[in-house]
């Protein structure tokens, strides 16, 4: 098998006396979807935050594309090619789709060949293109994203992440706040990312979603790795047992 795009060894993170993460290992390959499962407080969010630069690990190693990395902040991780989509999506509700896709990295043009100005036409055009690749229908891209439904907003957040050619996409509970049809849509989005050879990590409490899209499942319990299974070789019962510790 090819070299993993992301590889984590013995990752440990403590908050004072709380051992949020203890010696966690895993590998992630391009075109692979890894689900993180575990009870509340198991350390799932801590694991992805430590990878993407929100937290700094106390021990252990993160290798990205074969190189040891330690990101000082999420921005550094994003520039390297690891995009994180937070549960609250971090969209500016008052701005349109293009503005959100390009937030912080807006293309500029020259107005009357003289004054530097935001290239809104290009932002709208490229946002449309990237949203289309996600196979999601957005009625209009020139309206504030607050007018969009939960699944559409998720698409904008994912669109922003893939637009910048991230190789690894991390999603914290992308389906949690959505209704069933919208959850399906997001699952379809994740499949699309896999087809585009992205590596995806997603956290979910929903076993149906996990089994619908993940290649592998990493179960955490009290900060430790309770087990790792190929989706094809396990079932919901086993995963639940790993989560609660009666396997």
């Amino acid at each position, binding site marked *: 098998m090819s070299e993993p795009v992301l590889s984590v060894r013995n990752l440990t993170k403590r908050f004072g006396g709380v051992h949020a993460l203890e010696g966690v290992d895993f590998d992630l390959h391009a075109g692979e979807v890894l689900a993180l499962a575990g009870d509340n407080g198991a350390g799932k969010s801590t694991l992805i935050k430590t990878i993407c630069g929100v937290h700094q690990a106390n021990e252990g190693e993160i290798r990205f594309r074969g190189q040891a990395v330690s990101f000082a902040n999420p*921005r550094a991780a994003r520039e390297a090619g690891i995009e994180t989509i937070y549960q609250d999506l*971090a969209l*500016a509700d008052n701005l349109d789709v293009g503005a959100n896709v390009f937030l*912080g990295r807006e293309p500029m043009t020259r107005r009357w060949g003289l004054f*530097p100005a*935001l290239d809104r036409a290009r932002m709208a055009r490229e946002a449309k293109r990237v949203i289309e690749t996600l196979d999601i229908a957005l009625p209009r891209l020139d309206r504030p994203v607050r007018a969009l*439904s939960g699944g559409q907003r998720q698409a904008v957040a994912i669109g922003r992440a893939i637009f910048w050619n991230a190789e690894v996409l991390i999603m914290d509970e992308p389906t949690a706040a959505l209704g069933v049809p919208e959850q399906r849509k997001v699952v379809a989005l994740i499949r699309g990312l896999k087809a585009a050879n992205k590596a995806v990590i997603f956290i979910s409490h929903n076993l149906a979603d996990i089994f619908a899209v993940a290649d592998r499942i990493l179960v955490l319990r009290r900060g430790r790795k309770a087990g790792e299974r190929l989706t094809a070789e396990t079932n919901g019962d086993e995963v639940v047992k790993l989560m609660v510790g009666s396997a």
Partner: protein
Amino acid sequence: MSVTTEIGEPVSRPLLAALAGAWAWIFLVFLLGFFEIWARLAYHASFVLNGFNLQSIAVFTAQPFLLAVGQTFVIIAGGIDLSVGFTMGLAAVILAQAVRLADPLLGPWLGVLAGFLAALVAVAIPGLINGLLVSRLKVPPFIGTLGMYGVAEGAGYLAAGGTTVPVSNPVLFWLGNGTLFGVPAPVVVTLVVLAVLHYVLSQTRYGQYTYAIGGNRQAAVRAGIDVRRHTELLYLLSAFCAGIGGCIYTARFSAGAAQAGEPLLLDSIAAVVIGGASLFGGSGTIIGTLIGALIIAVIQYGLVFIDVAPFWQFIAVGIVIVVSVLVDQSRLALTSGVRTDE
């Protein structure tokens, strides 16, 4: 794999929404029409087609607008600057004092220049402190700038020695009372500020980030925007706008006064709100604020013109503020399907 159900699609009523969006314009036209008819009936003269009236309204608009234009940026980013009125007064006093000092030494031109520099440096201090309080020390903008309201008031009166500071300088006088092709000089200055800041807000990254911070501060931070520095600059900008307003005051009246901007603070906030900005941040435009300031000026000047007791203007402006917020809320509901939960 396309599961493209349209969920949460807002009911779209474009005509109503467009009307609500343009309501400030419509209202301004209505006001002008109202005073026009009144003037024709009562005085057999035109209200609008009258150079003197137009000049007066423009000058009436310029002062609160200069405070409001910086305030627009601050409010869009989700803040508020209550100190602009006394920051303006501080600039007015410092300019007068500095010209009194510098004019005999440097002559009228350089004297005025030195005065402007002194005034801008003086207002930079409250602007920077406001910015620091809000961005680094996490003081709520309402409280931080309320504190600065008091400090700038005291500083202004101290610098003025407790009275108004008369100043006589021909260059300054022209800037306050001269005209350029029939346009009053203060209005010309205001138009330049208008053009520059409209451009900054609508065309540059700085403007875009101002909206983003007001829409979702966390999103702006995660997008790598330096929100703290941005916020500091916002309050500095607001103070500079107020400073320009103070300089114009001194030029117009040939005297600096610490209380110059006191009555303008609420007018400036009203102009921003009437212009369509939300005090929760995230929306607003410079052109909207201009329309808001014009509406207030037309009401104030028009009521005096038709000889109504001046106290009615407070009532009229108060009603317009509330109505504008109500219209704005219905517009939001119409354009985005967002309704307030209740």
